[in-house]
């Protein structure tokens, strides 16, 4: 789905990611590497396929970009690269696999990693974590912490992750309940904000239906009053569905 905001910056929702065709920038939400390993350590013995799944999903997204004859020039990870706050050696190993895969398409310095609230330690000797990243009039950050620079006049669009937004649709109460990942888009402080769903497949995310009671302002840089007016885009397998505003679900 092609979208243009009022500032005429073109972007496209691609699966769980956002692509800026004019700039060749692909943006991915929280990937939480090590989530499955954390489950295994907690005694839930699932086969660890997370990295394999991430790579196969990335492959599909990159193929779509190429099929549309666009150039992929840069990839940005919006933080919470790893799941555990502590350092686990396996995560480094897994991160290597993802970087190695992406290097087949773009040079390493064009893979940007932003620091999330889970990324408390340096995660990898080869990887530089940034608090935020600015590309022209677009700012990219995780979303738990604000920085003066992103509210600079020249910035028109701000892309964040962190909130893992999802929507619960109910028809027959108590029985027919389904949960879907979603994007949120709205304006705050004269900037266009876009919140990405988490990239990690297993978890649908945190329901925006509960924002009225559960939204923690201390947890996010977007105030509750503002986010309630954000538009909701639900992620279907085939397409994206526009579904009114966050407040309509509360």
């Amino acid at each position: 789905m092609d979208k243009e905001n009022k500032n005429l910056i073109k972007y496209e929702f691609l699966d769980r990611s956002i692509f800026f065709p004019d700039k060749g920038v692909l943006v991915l939400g929280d990937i939480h590497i090590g989530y499955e390993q954390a489950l295994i350590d907690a005694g839930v013995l699932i086969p660890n396929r997370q990295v394999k799944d991430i790579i196969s999903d990335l492959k599909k997204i990159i193929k779509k970009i190429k099929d549309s004859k666009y150039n992929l020039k840069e990839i940005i990870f919006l933080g919470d690269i790893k799941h555990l706050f502590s350092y686990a050696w396996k995560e480094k190993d897994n991160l290597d696999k993802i970087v190695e895969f992406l290097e087949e398409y773009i040079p390493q310095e064009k893979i940007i990693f932003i620091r999330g609230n889970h990324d408390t330690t340096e995660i990898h000797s080869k990887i530089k974590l940034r608090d935020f990243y600015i590309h022209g009039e677009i700012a990219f950050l995780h979303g738990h912490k604000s920085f003066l620079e992103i509210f600079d006049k020249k910035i028109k669009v701000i892309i964040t992750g962190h909130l893992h937004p999802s929507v619960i649709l109910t028809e027959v109460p108590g029985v027919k309940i389904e949960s879907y990942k979603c994007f949120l888009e709205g304006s705050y402080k004269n900037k266009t904000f876009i919140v990405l769903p988490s990239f990690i497949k297993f978890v649908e995310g945190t329901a925006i239906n509960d924002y009225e009671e559960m939204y923690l302002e201390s947890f996010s840089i977007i105030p509750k009053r503002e986010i309630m007016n954000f538009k909701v885009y639900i992620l279907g397998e085939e397409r994206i569905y526009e579904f009114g505003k966050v407040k309509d679900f509360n």
Partner: protein
Amino acid sequence: MTEIQVINEPNTKEQIFSNLNPIVSNWFKLKFKEFVESQKYCLVPIKNRENILLSSPTGSGKTLSAFASILSYLIDLHEKGNLENRTYAVYCSPLKALSRDIEVNLKKPLEEMEKMVNKKFGIRIGLRTGDTTTLERTKMLKNPPHILITTPESLAIILTSKNFVEHLRKTEFCIVDEIHSLDNKRGTYLSLTLERLNEISTIWPVKIGLSATIEPMEEVAKFLVGVSPERKVKIAKVILDKKIDVEVLSPVDNIMEDQDLHLKMYDLISDLIQEHKTTLIFTNTRSATERVVNFLKDRFPTEYGDDNIAAHHSSLSKNHRFDIEERLRQGKLKVVVCSTSLELGIDIGFIDLVIMLGSPKSSSRALQRLGRAGHRLREISKGRFIVLDRDDLIECCIIKKEMIEKKINKIRFPKNCLDVLSQQIYGMAIYKIWKEKEILDLIKRSYCYADLTRKDFLDTISYLSGEYALEKNNVYAKIWYDPETKEIGKRGKLARVIYMTNIGTIPEESFITVKIAGTNEVVGLIDEGFLSRMRKLDVFVLGGKKYQHKYTRGMNLYVSSEVRRNPTIPSWFSEMLPLSFDSALEISKFRYLIRKELESKRPKKKILEFIKNYLKVPEKTAEAIYNYFLEQHSFLEIPHEKLIVIEKFSDLGKKYLLFHTLYGRRVNDALSRAIGYIIGALGGRDIEIGISDNGFYLAGERMMLKRTLEELKEKNLEKFLKEAIDRTDVLARRFRHCAARSLMILKNYKGKNKSVGKQQMKSHFLLSAVKKITNEFPILREARREVLEDVMDIKNAKLVLSWIEKKKVKIKILETDIPSPFSLGLILQGHTDLIRIEDKQEFLKRMHELHIKKIIENK
């Protein structure tokens, strides 16, 4: 096959005394006038080392029947100076508290005998349960108890301990108590544990099974001794000679019209309590337990307070429960209200009245509950059913009739459970390295695994050895299997610790506390699974009151009690006891008889006479039942044992199909889901279902009933059901239980105890991961089996379909404007679940269209 022999003749006093050590004989003569029935059947066969299953009513001296000959033998050995430093007898009971009880009841006679002859025999009795400390265990290893008192789980752990096993090499007796309560996976588990004990012991441990009144005895006997041509077992059935006094009471004369039904019920309960010394009330559910206690305290503050009334149910802490049991034994409590938790045999002292609120759902359960009154043999057991609606009234009257006629519902042990098998194979592999044939032969001697297929066995081995993981780091691998040598052994240094800390078959559940928002007043507990079905602002029923979901914080749900709206959420039925198939058929038969009476146009007086005689009920009750049947008869038709009536009607644009299938909730669960699934698939949309013991209904837009009924056959029921349950909550939930039993989810791992809540949240990842590997993953297969055979009753559902195919049962489809009197209860109860046909993406698309339409309309 195992050889079974029924004992018809009890032994005489003389025969018994000639088989006992004189000290034991003299003790008996001193203490009792004569032997009780169960002792006359048991003592000599046990002395002669014959396997025996004894079924007799509670309070009939069963414990002593099992132990007398063993004590006699051990005293013989002591006198000859031959008492060795090893375990001679293992006593295994599913109740931890009971083990403690037995220790007292066994030690006391022994001490009295020692006093009689003024010397010590040196017979050690030791208790080993999950609560036994490391120090006590170490002591036990040095000086093993001659009689070991234990639980099924602890026995399995003992059997992996190389050192302790040495003491069990010559186990001569093995007593299994409370067998009637083992018709679940604990029983399946124990059947394998017993085979493990048989295998390590160089002599055959004589099996002594003790049970309350139970059917079918032959199957239970095979469960006890296992399946093998050289095995023989005797059956002794002591008939209930205890007098019973049961009545069905209604709080008001006219259940249908009285507005004060609930208040009057409490008046009736209180009157009954005041007329007796100590009363035990069964309520079937935990939430009702608390409600009854609170209501009695509120309504009669001078009669009931914390000092004389208490609630007892399984979600209370262990200490709290022990405290209540102790106060009950000491006669300090006037009344105890319990869910089902006091059904089993721990001694609770003198009870002179048992009240059952609502139907106990089976005659065996009713008898078991009634047995808690007048626990001693020759006292009269007094019980009262209190009913609140007309279906309940008929059900309780029929169950009462079954009790008087001594008709017992049949029990069934779950078979070929691959989760239990996984846990046991792991335990066996920890103990030693096995040859494939050796371990499979052992497993197949267990009654519950006698017809285990080789494929199921090998798939379980594959799961345990990590072959399904498809990854280098084999997270599943618990054992190794060498296809060359066909040997099996354990893997990993932590194996024993993982096994010991995660053993067992009882699923852990966690509960959410429901509190009133603002005041924080606690109104009750709900199951976590129930919460996951609820959304903000939904209205649900808890303990008879309506609440509205406001928000959740951690393990608390905050609600508002000021609600006018009707419930939006179906009640949570996981706790609800299902009506037994046998009792259900008895009710159907009664329906048939009454229908014939009504059709014969005999005068009302004659028909009332018939009901009074048949059910042994007073005039008022007979009249209420008569009126109920007459209403149905004049309105539509009375369905019965040879006729299923299907009512068709529409309401608010929705089409309803209401099936009068009185086969109990478990059979109806299977039938309704299979039929609903076919109807849904034909129409392409979801189908709403509501299930009760008396029938079920389906609601939807397009309902192709005739084609569905042609489609569904006995032989394809299983296929349809497997598809129908694939996306249900119940499968996900049961899968979590099976995953825990097969040690895919560990509650204790690397020294940390994981909360069930966390496990529950994460288990759906496990389910989707497993489905990705293969839809035929053995533990997933087991979860399906559990849903079909243990939650539902596919076996009897097939039987019903075969009756329909053979035209033994006919089906009649009738159109109605409003639901008939017999179907009111089912309709009022609301929907239970939804059969999901529409997939997640289609649902999203449809919701989006509705959403767009709404936006346009609003503009």
